[in-house]
């Protein structure tokens, strides 16, 4: 049944490529708009430095890899809960240049009690250029 085998092989290849290629293609598509993905995990933001242009609309797309974190950028009034396993978006237009702090404002643990580490030093940087 040589024809049968050829058909079977083609079906397999199409299937595997579709499953693995599909999401990958989708991911590459999403980068066209000005969307920046941020992952929060205990106890860092990934990436922990974001560079945007002043006046340009930017969408922050964020999720958590473990527990509930906060995405708090005081300078632009962004105050969101970063939920594990879910993606959320917030869109804003940075209207001033400079270096601004991204902070986690939902307590997300620390290595040991009273460490001053972990959540307490979970920071990121938002740089707005001209």
């Amino acid at each position: 049944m040589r024809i049968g085998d050829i058909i079977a092989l083609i079906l397999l290849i199409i299937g595997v490529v579709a499953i693995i290629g599909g999401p990958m293609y989708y991911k590459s598509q999403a980068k066209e708009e000005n969307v920046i993905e941020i992952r929060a995990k205990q106890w860092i933001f990934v990436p922990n430095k974001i560079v945007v242009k002043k006046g340009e609309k930017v969408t922050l797309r964020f999720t958590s890899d473990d527990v509930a974190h906060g995405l708090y950028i005081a300078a632009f009034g962004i105050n969101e809960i970063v939920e594990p396993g879910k993606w959320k978006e917030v869109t804003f237009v940075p209207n001033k240049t400079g270096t601004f702090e991204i902070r986690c404002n939902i307590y997300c643990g620390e290595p040991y009690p009273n460490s001053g580490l972990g959540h307490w030093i979970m920071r990121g940087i938002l740089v707005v250029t001209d």
Partner: protein
Amino acid sequence: MAEVSEEVKDATAKGEAKYFFRYDLLRIPIIRWLFKLRAYQFIAIFPNFLIFVALIYAAFFGSPVGNSNLTILIMWIVWWAALMLILVPFGGRIWCQVCPIPAIGEWLQRGTFVGVRHKPIGLGKRWPKKFDNIWLQNASFLMVSSFIGVLVTRPWVSGVLLVILVIILPIIIFLIFRGRAFCRYICPISGFIGLYSMFSTLELRVKNRETCIKHVGYKDCIRGNDKGYGCPWFEYPGNLNRNAYCGLCTECIKTCPFDNIAVNFRIGGEDLFVDPWYGIKKRGLDEAYKTFIMATLAILYAIVFAGAYPWLREVSNVLGGKVAPLIGKAVHVPFDKKTNLLIEAFSLQNYLTFLGIILISTLVIAPALFAAFAYLSKILSGRDVSFKRVFINFSYALVPISLMAWGAFSIYILLINGSYVLRILSDPFNLGWDLFGTAHLKWQPYFTWAIPYIQMAFIAAGVVFSTRAAHEISLRMFDDKKAAIRAAIPIVAAVIGYALIVIHVWLGGGVFL
């Protein structure tokens, strides 16, 4: 032309348990056509194969959060529940027929996807006689169990297991050995499916054993012909009176020149009660221990994962990384000082403790407890059957109720986490899709009021079937009916004792468990 002796006819009768109802599904034209189709196995395996490819992908590239990860949800909630609640009790080894795990190995070994090619690729070695048992599967299942805490919570760990099971092991084993040696002797899932399949409502048997006996010379079902392969599970359909090692692969249905194979839906006739055909292979300690392993883990998992014992739960988390000091409450969690990143470190301490708990409870405590009941049984019978025989044969009585205990566990997990499954279908790879509109479904358990009743029904059914099994096994072991009843009573007590423990684990609280 060999004549069929009375001895054979008598053994034929003894080798079967009584059926209340039996219907050959191959009498239904569409099923008959499908099972005889050369390409049927490929057609059946193909969708599952793609699903497993998706699972492997999602394990490494999907969300790292367990309840938002396709692999965790499908493997450990949907698939597990489907196996324990539907596929195994009603289909026996029907999963093995459509299982994608050995697919790559078998396609490579046969050198074809849908054809018949009797020039196998690879070494084609026979499986060593010394390992013609399921001890290896007992070991592989226990090994998987020792990691169960992290398997069901860390997607990448399940991904690693899938890569080993679906890609690495099959390729190696299928290219070294003939047939489905991987499935019959190594696969951890196969071990318990085989055991529980003896309690199922589906069986593959020959329609008429005399036909097989009269068919001397070349046996197509075990040697293969132009229509198909010889049984890859190393069974001889003519002697098949137990489901344990028949993977329902349909090869014999295609090859038998007398169309003597039947796939029966049955009520009654559980093969738990009988020895493998004609005493060729006696029931062994390996299967008995598989029973103890499954029966014990049904209880242990319920305590660890749905119980109120934080310490026990913590040791199961072998990537917990918590180094708990022997005294004091301070907990240090490994983290990288430079980057402030929490590290999931493998805790040897936790692993060895949890492994120890599993091994001791399944291989020592459970068998020892059952041995006490079996010893009582032997004494009460007043008969000359060896203790080992009593111990092994009666262990099968635990199969129905332990399957029901797994059912109680699985339905709980399914109803509590079902909303996560509905959610993941809309966004399987955690990319922000919403295919079915359920991507933002909030967690909510379903039918919590019904769970105790459903579990209760499972356990009640388990008591009935296991008690029946105890008596049926006893009647076949002892010639005297009164002795058989006396011998069965301690086993019935063991069955009830097991049921009470399962009930307490799910519906009870307090110090004792």
